[in-house]
C-alpha cells in the first residue's frame, strides 16, 4: 500500500499570534490530518487553531540560490529607519 501523504502542520498558539510551523505528519486525508495534528501537537493546549497543508503543495525557495535570491534586498539600506539622519532637537520622529 502506498504511504499516506505528508502534511505540514501550523499551529496558532494564542489569539493574536500567527500560525507557526510545528512539524509534519502522515494522514490519508485532510480531516484525519487535522485530527492527528490535534492529538500530536496540542496535547497540552499548545494551540487555538491548526492548519494542515499537503507538503506536496508547498513551493520553496532553493538554498542553492541563497545569495542571488535574497541579495536584491541587501543594497537597499534606505528601507530601514536607521538609514536617515535625524537633526538634533526634533521630537516624536
Amino acid at each position: 500500500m502506498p504511504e499516506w501523504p505528508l502534511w505540514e502542520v501550523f499551529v496558532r498558539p494564542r489569539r493574536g499570534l500567527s500560525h507557526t510551523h510545528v512539524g509534519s505528519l502522515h494522514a490519508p486525508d485532510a480531516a484525519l490530518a487535522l485530527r492527528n495534528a490535534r492529538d500530536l501537537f496540542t496535547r497540552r493546549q499548545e494551540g487555538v487553531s491548526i492548519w494542515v497543508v499537503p507538503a506536496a503543495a508547498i513551493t520553496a525557495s532553493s538554498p542553492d540560490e541563497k545569495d542571488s535570491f535574497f541579495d536584491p534586498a541587501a543594497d537597499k539600506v534606505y528601507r530601514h529607519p536607521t538609514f536617515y539622519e535625524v537633526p538634533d532637537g526634533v521630537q516624536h520622529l
Partner: protein
Amino acid sequence: MYGNDFAAPGGELLDQVADAERELRAAADRSVRGGSDEETYFTELVAADQKIEPRDWMPDGYRKTLIRQIAQHAHSEIIGMQPEANWLTRAPTLKRKAILLAKVQDEAGHGLYLYAAAETLGVSRDTLYDLLLAGRQKYSSIFNYPTLSWADVGAIGWLVDGAAIVNQVPLCRCSYGPYARAMIRICKEESFHQRQGYEILYTLAHGTPGQKEMAQDAVDRWWYPSLAMFGPPDTDSTHSAQSMAWKIKRFSNDDLRQRFVDMCAQQATVLGLTIPDPDLRWNPDRGAYDYTAPDYAELMEVIRGNGPCNRARMANRRAAHEDGAWVREAAAAYAAKHAAPAAPTAEAVHA
C-alpha cells in the same frame, strides 16, 4: 564541573531546554560568511552553532549518521511503549492509570516527531519502519528487559527516563535543525515522565515493608541496564568522535553516564532506597561519584538480540502492524472515495 550544558535534576531541566532554544535563536543572528563552496559553508555554519536545515548541502556521512541515530531514537520511543503498556490494565488506581496512559501516548508522539525529523533527510517513514521490523535497525536495548511488577513502572520513570533525559537534553543543541527542534519538544514533555516515576517509587518506598521491598527490587534490576543506556565506554565507542565534530553529539558516553550517576546518588537517598553498587561513593578529588561500570558484554548480547524480551517486543510490534493493516486500508479507501476534485478557493484558505 562540566560547564553549564547539563540538565540538573528536577526543575532545572526545563531551564536547560529553554537555554538551548534561546541559543538556537541567538546563533541564527551571528553572521556566517557564506563560504566559497558548499562544504566550506556547511563547516562554517556548524562552527557558528547555526543549524543545518533539510535542503542544505551536507556530507553524506552526516546525513547517514543522522538517519541512523534519529531512526534508532524513533524506534526506541515506539518499542518503549511496550514495557509500560504491560501495566496499563493493572495500574493500582484510576489516577495512576490515567497518568500512565498519558505517558505512553507521549511516547507514541515522540516517535512520530522523530520519524518526521528523519524524513526531512530524504528517507520515508515506511522504509524506516520496515528496517525495524526486519531487525536491520535497532532500538535502545533497555526495552528488552521485562516489567515484572508495578514498581518497575516507577523505576522506568526514574532511571530509564532519567537516563534518557541526560542523553537528550544535549541533543536540543544538535546541529541539525529538525532534530534539535523535535528534541526541544520532547524534552519539554519528558519532564513529567521522570517525576511520575519518582513519585511511584517514593510512594512505595514509604508504604508497607512489602511495598518498599518491591521498589528496591525494581531499582536493583533496572540500575545497571540504565547505566548501559549511555552506550559502550568512550574507548570502544565507534561513532563518537565524528559525531562530536559535527555537533550531532555534544558529550561523550562516559561523561553523560557520570552525570547520571551523580544525579541518582542524591535522589536515591531521598527515596530511602539503595543503589545496588557497593562501590558507589563520593570521590572528592574528582568531584564525582565513583561507581561500578555496567556489564558491557551483557549490553552487546542484548543488542545482538539475546536479551530477555527481544523476540517478544518485535513479535508484538509486527503483530500490531499487521493487525492494523485493515485500518490503514480503510482510511485510504475512504480518502480516495471522498477526494475533492475542486481546486481550493481563496476564502477556504483563510479559515
